[in-house]
């Protein structure tokens, strides 16, 4: 018996619906949760470096998300693991970039930049240079609690 033809978009919709339920409504049983330990410290290359006090900004429109998991890779500076891949500072093919997200188990938008400049500060007689490695992530992620969340995060 022949099945009625299914439009491609409908198959895609069904597949995406199945994936969504598998990820978000299975009680986390289908998730492969990485067990790596994190000394999650973001990269900070500015004169002002951010520690992770995790201040809450205006988050009235955000769900109370759990801590996101860091990406497994990154680098080590001064013996501290940094789960971050800076964008290249030299011309590099876009296809060669490392994962620019700091969040693991992430599906969403990422903006990232490697940028430099000059600035002036208290007590400085002339402009000083800076380099900033900054960006943001916005989307869905599986948090440290193993559950799905949505959120927006900035890395400084």
């Amino acid at each position, binding site marked *: 018996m022949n099945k009625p033809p299914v439009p491609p978009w409908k198959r895609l919709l069904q597949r995406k619906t199945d994936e969504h339920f598998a990820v978000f409504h299975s009680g986390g049983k289908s998730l492969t949760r990485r067990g790596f330990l994190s000394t999650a410290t973001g990269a900070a290359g500015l004169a002002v470096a*951010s520690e992770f006090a995790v201040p809450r900004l205006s988050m009235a429109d955000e769900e109370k998300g759990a801590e*996101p998991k860091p990406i497994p890779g990154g680098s080590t500076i001064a013996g501290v693991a940094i789960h971050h891949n800076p964008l290249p500072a030299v011309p590099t093919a876009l296809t060669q*970039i490392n994962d620019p997200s700091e969040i693991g188990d992430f599906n969403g938008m990422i903006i990232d930049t490697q940028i430099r400049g000059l600035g002036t500060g208290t007590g400085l007689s002339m402009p000083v240079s800076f380099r900033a490695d900054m960006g943001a992530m916005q989307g869905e992620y599986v948090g440290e609690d193993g559950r799905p969340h949505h959120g927006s995060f*900035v890395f400084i």
Partner: protein
Amino acid sequence: MIPTSRDSVQIDFEEGVASLRVRDVPVTDAHDLYNNLTKGQGYAPLGVPPVAPVPAKVSFDIEWRGITDSAKVVNVMQNFRGKFVKTGATIDWSAESANFAFQSESPNPARNLYAVIGHEQNGVFFHLEADDE
């Protein structure tokens, strides 16, 4: 990594335009990267002296604009995939603590080294598709 409001991040992937605007984010000013990573203990191998972190606030206004390249990236080793556009970018930022204030120069597109906007999936969201090479 700091949670922020949804409104502080604006992204139009198709147009290659995005912005990140945050105001008065409380941070600790650790003077330099090494003191930040070592929580003010300095880093003797490089002769970086200890500097106690102090409370500070920073504000940023970063804009991404002008697509110069686009690509699908599939990286099995790093377990991520996505569509990315390379763009120009500008930054305007300032910082203030009890005894120090900093203000960057006016936004200057020539200062950008590398900037991207992307829609990606990693970890449990990573998957291969039929047309992946």
